[in-house]
């Protein structure tokens, strides 16, 4: 600080020194005058007596001023000059660093919005979730009303403890009937989050457990989409599942908790509710009291939870509680490992870029021996040389960071639309993906770090330049040599190792993700339209009424001109509502393990409409009605897993054996495999039931047609002709359903593959530049060889051999490293094996051929060398 200050006070210091010197000269002159000189003579003599004032002042400034900062400024000016003078070197280095830093900045901007700041609310450092823990399992957010009542009453570390759950309602009343995510929230919910409405009021004044007002608060986005941002919306009445609610207010744009929320309404917990400890469906959120920490709150709530567990051992055995900051808990548990993977992969890319630039700089050191020697000769210290080279490296890297920020801006712009808006509610923060202050700071910091990383080795080598030798060599710089060459080769090999590891990692992840991307082959999802309805309990209280509704919708939809096949299905693949059940098989006396199955209810033409083949037995028919024998169709994977080589047709199974009403089912057919959840590699066990035997209250309509988009109005009308008040939602082409659901996987796959491509690109640039440098260093030798009659081919081969040799070493070292990574990934991924030889062969082939290509194009320059010209250079 003192030194920094000194820079700004440099003028004042100089001024003071001048004052001091003037006094001195005057006094000296006065002395001389006393000795008998004339005033003029005395003045001149006094000046002479002071010696070389300019030199002295320089020394004075060095001693007093701020040598460090000034040296830094000088270094930067010098670095700028050096970089300008070597545009090719500068361009390659900046290019490599910009790629590395840009990729890292883009990934960091994802981390920033997804993990660091998924929500944008005021008191995020105080808002917490209470999670229930069970030994051996992930903490869960679900607690029972009884838990909530006890925690709220007994906790001293948390205030405004509240709960919410997402019930989901049909909304009607002056708007298009639709399904809304209606969040029931207890009284202090908005206080816990410190939230204020943008418009109107909240309903926290309502008493907690009785006499609930029918009021609702809208989310900003829902207000925009469903009400067109109508400023007069407050005071309007809408119906939620038939009940009237008055709209009390609209929340601001940034209030997104829970992220799925479209509307918030009061939660009624009666005295009876509060005595229930068996239904865990509430999420608890509260605020730390002033002075309390997350650790203290966890400690306190664990004690309270232990008390609850003792009082209610039936459903709370070994259950505990922990407290987590809302901000840390909001992003799904699956986001963190993915971000860790992406961050490490992209870190490797940066490392590769840094090694690349280190190597370029190392090559430059040998070209600059004369310059370095001269600087030593005029008295520069080793430290000064080191600092000069480090400064150059950091300046390069910061320019790279600047370009990288541009790249990251472009990349985040590309990435943002890769996650469709339908998914935003699951990944809060994503829509804010882009550059911000945090991200820019990160880019700067990474730039500095990369600069230092890439500059340290070259700087040390530069500072070891042997003065005598360098000057004798005439700066041709073939010397200094062996060690530096070895290090350069090591660097090239290291780049190959990094590239190898990255490529194998990228290939594995991309393979894995591609495996799970389609539910099944040849579904022809582009020609299928889907929409969902949910029958309200009040209007459709029994199976008979649901059957009638389903039958009528099927008939009317089938009558739409152009429709090829129509079916109803409980859950389409890749939608949100998958459920698993346990199952037993008749004749197996002892059930070793209960088998988990995915349970589907479909109408007869489902397999035709979905293009799922029936591989054995038959599809459902009109005979599989409520009067027929209970029938089931199972998936191939089911048949194979449960019955092995035995015939599954005719066997009997029972789904949900715990329930007395569950009948024995006879297997009548086997359907082709289908994946119901995206990202699952193995096919699940699926049991299909005829919908007439297992009526559903919520299902999808599936229409196959050559122009599915043109069908949507007619299909809606068909449903509304049966029940005009029923919301029809999630109207989408099936292909889009799949695309939306798999977009995170595709995003990750494209990121990982671009890191692989970057790795390849950077390592090729590394090989090329090192070979090109080697060619120019050995010009004279090549000239002699050519003069002695060496052929072009031989010269090219000489360099090509060197490049291949380096690639070979890189592969030899990279293979075990990549195999190690593959073993780690094997544990994380389901569909790929580390023993996949083809994958390694591919990586080796790609890296070796790119190294060969790079060396060859550098070597061609060697072949073009004119021996006469090089010998004349002497």
């Amino acid at each position, binding site marked *: 600080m003192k030194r920094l200050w000194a820079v700004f006070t440099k003028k004042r210091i100089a001024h*003071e*020194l001048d*004052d*001091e*010197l*003037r*006094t*001195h000269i*005057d*006094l*000296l002159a*006065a*002395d001389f005058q006393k000795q008998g000189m004339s005033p003029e003579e005395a003045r001149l003599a006094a000046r002479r*007596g*002071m*010696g*070389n*004032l300019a030199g*002295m002042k320089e*020394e*004075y400034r*060095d*001693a*007093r001023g701020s040598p460090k900062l000034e040296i830094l400024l000088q270094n930067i000016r010098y670095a700028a000059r050096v970089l300008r003078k070597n545009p090719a070197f500068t361009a390659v280095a900046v290019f490599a660093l910009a790629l590395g830093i840009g990729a890292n900045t883009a990934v960091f901007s994802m981390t920033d919005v997804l993990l660091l700041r998924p929500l944008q609310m005021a008191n995020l450092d105080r808002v917490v979730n209470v999670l229930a823990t069970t030994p051996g399992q992930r903490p869960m957010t679900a607690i029972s009303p009884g838990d909530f009542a006890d925690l709220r009453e007994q906790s001293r570390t948390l205030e405004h403890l509240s709960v919410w759950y997402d019930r989901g309602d049909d909304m009607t009343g002056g708007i298009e009937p639709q399904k809304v995510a209606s969040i029931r929230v207890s009284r202090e919910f908005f206080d816990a989050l410190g939230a204020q409405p943008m418009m109107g009021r909240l309903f926290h004044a309502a008493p907690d457990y009785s006499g609930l007002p029918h009021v609702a608060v809208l989310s900003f986005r829902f207000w925009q989409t469903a009400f067109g941002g109508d400023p007069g919306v407050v005071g309007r009445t809408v119906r939620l599942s038939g009940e009237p609610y008055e709209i009390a207010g609209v929340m601001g744009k940034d209030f997104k908790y829970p992220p799925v929320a479209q509307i918030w309404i009061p939660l009624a917990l009666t005295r009876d509710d509060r005595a229930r400890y068996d239904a865990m469906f509430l999420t608890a959120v509260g605020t730390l009291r002033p002075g309390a920490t997350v650790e203290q709150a966890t400690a306190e709530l664990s004690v309270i939870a232990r008390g609850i567990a003792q009082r209610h051992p039936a459903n709370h055995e070994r259950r505990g509680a922990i407290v987590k900051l809302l901000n840390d808990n909001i992003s799904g548990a699956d986001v963190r490992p993915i971000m860790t993977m992406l961050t490490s992969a992209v870190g490797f890319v940066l490392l590769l870029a840094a090694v690349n630039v280190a190597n370029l700089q190392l090559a430059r050191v040998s070209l600059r021996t004369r310059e370095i020697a001269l600087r030593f000769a005029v008295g520069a210290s080793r430290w000064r040389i080191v600092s000069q080279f480090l400064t150059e490296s950091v300046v390069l890297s910061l320019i790279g960071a600047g370009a990288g920020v541009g790249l990251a801006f472009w990349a985040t712009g590309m990435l943002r639309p890769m996650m469709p808006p339908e998914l935003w509610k699951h990944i809060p923060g994503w829509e804010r993906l882009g550059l911000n202050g945090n991200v820019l700071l990160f880019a700067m910091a990474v730039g500095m770090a990369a600069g230092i990383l890439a500059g340290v080795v070259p700087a040390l080598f530069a500072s070891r330049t042997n003065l005598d030798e360098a000057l004798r060599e005439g700066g041709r710089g073939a010397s200094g040599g062996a060690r530096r060459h070895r290090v350069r080769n090591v660097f090239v090999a290291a780049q190959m190792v990094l590239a190898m590891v990255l490529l194998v990692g990228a290939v594995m992840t991309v393979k894995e993700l591609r495996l799970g991307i389609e539910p099944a082959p040849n579904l022809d999802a582009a020609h299928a339209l889907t929409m969902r309805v949910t029958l309200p309990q009040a209007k459709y209280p029994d199976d008979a009424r649901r059957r009638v509704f389903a039958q009528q919708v099927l008939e009317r939809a089938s009558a739409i001109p152009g429709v090829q096949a129509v079916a109803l299905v409980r859950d389409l693949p890749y939608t949100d509502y998958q459920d698993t059940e346990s199952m037993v098989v008749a004749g197996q006396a002892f059930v070793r393990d209960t088998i988990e199955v995915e349970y589907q209810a479909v109408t007869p033409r489902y397999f035709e409409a979905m293009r799922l083949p029936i591989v054995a037995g038959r599809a459902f028919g009109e005979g599989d009605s409520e009067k027929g024998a209970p029938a089931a169709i199972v998936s191939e994977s089911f048949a194979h897993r449960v019955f092995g080589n035995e015939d599954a047709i005719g066997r009997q199974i029972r789904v949900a054996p715990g329930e007395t009403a569950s009948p024995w089912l006879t297997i009548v057919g086997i359907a082709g495999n289908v994946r119901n959840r995206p990202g699952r590699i193995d096919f699940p066990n699926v049991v299909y039931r005829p919908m007439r035997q297992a009526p559903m209250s919520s299902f999808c309509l599936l229409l196959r047609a050559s122009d599915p988009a043109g069908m949507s109005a007619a299909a809606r009308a068909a449903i509304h002709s049966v029940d005009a008040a029923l919301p029809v939602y999630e109207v989408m082409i099936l292909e889009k359903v799949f695309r939306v659901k798999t977009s995170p996987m595709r995003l990750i796959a494209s990121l990982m593959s671009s890191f692989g491509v970057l790795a390849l690109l950077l390592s090729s640039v590394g090989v090329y530049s090192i070979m090109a440098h080697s060619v120019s260093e050995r010009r004279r030798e090549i000239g002699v060889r050519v003069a002695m009659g060496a052929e072009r081919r031989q010269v090219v081969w000489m360099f090509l051999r060197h490049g291949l040799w380096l690639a070979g070493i890189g592969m030899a070292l990279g293979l075990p490293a990549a195999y190690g990574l593959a073993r780690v990934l094997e544990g994380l991924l389901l569909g790929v094996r580390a023993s996949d030889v083809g994958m390694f062969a591919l990586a080796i082939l790609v890296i070796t051929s790119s190294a060969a290509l790079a060396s060859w194009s550098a070597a061609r320059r060697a072949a073009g060398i004119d021996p006469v010209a090089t010998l004349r250079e002497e």
Partner: protein
Amino acid sequence: MNERKTAVLLGSLDLMVLKTLEGLGPLHGYGIARRIEQVSEGALYLNQGTIYPALVRLEQKGWISTEWGISENNRRARFYSITQKGRKHLAEEADHWAFAAAIVSRVLEGKA
């Protein structure tokens, strides 16, 4: 070289400045320079300007302190005085110097 004026020995200037300040109390630059020349009875040739960088060095090491005052010709001048730390350093260095000088002269006498 028949004139026996010699340039200041490297490193000895600091010591001489400290010694001067210890003996005479606060002085300005000119006073210090003149005193050193007087004491050496003109045997020492001093570019008087060179004492200023030396003064800055000493100040930064904390061996001397400065304050602004008025010189005998009524000009603004900086006055230097030795600090406690400076006295200690001077004592140590003076011992060291004497020791080194004794060795050098013993060697020279022995060989001559």
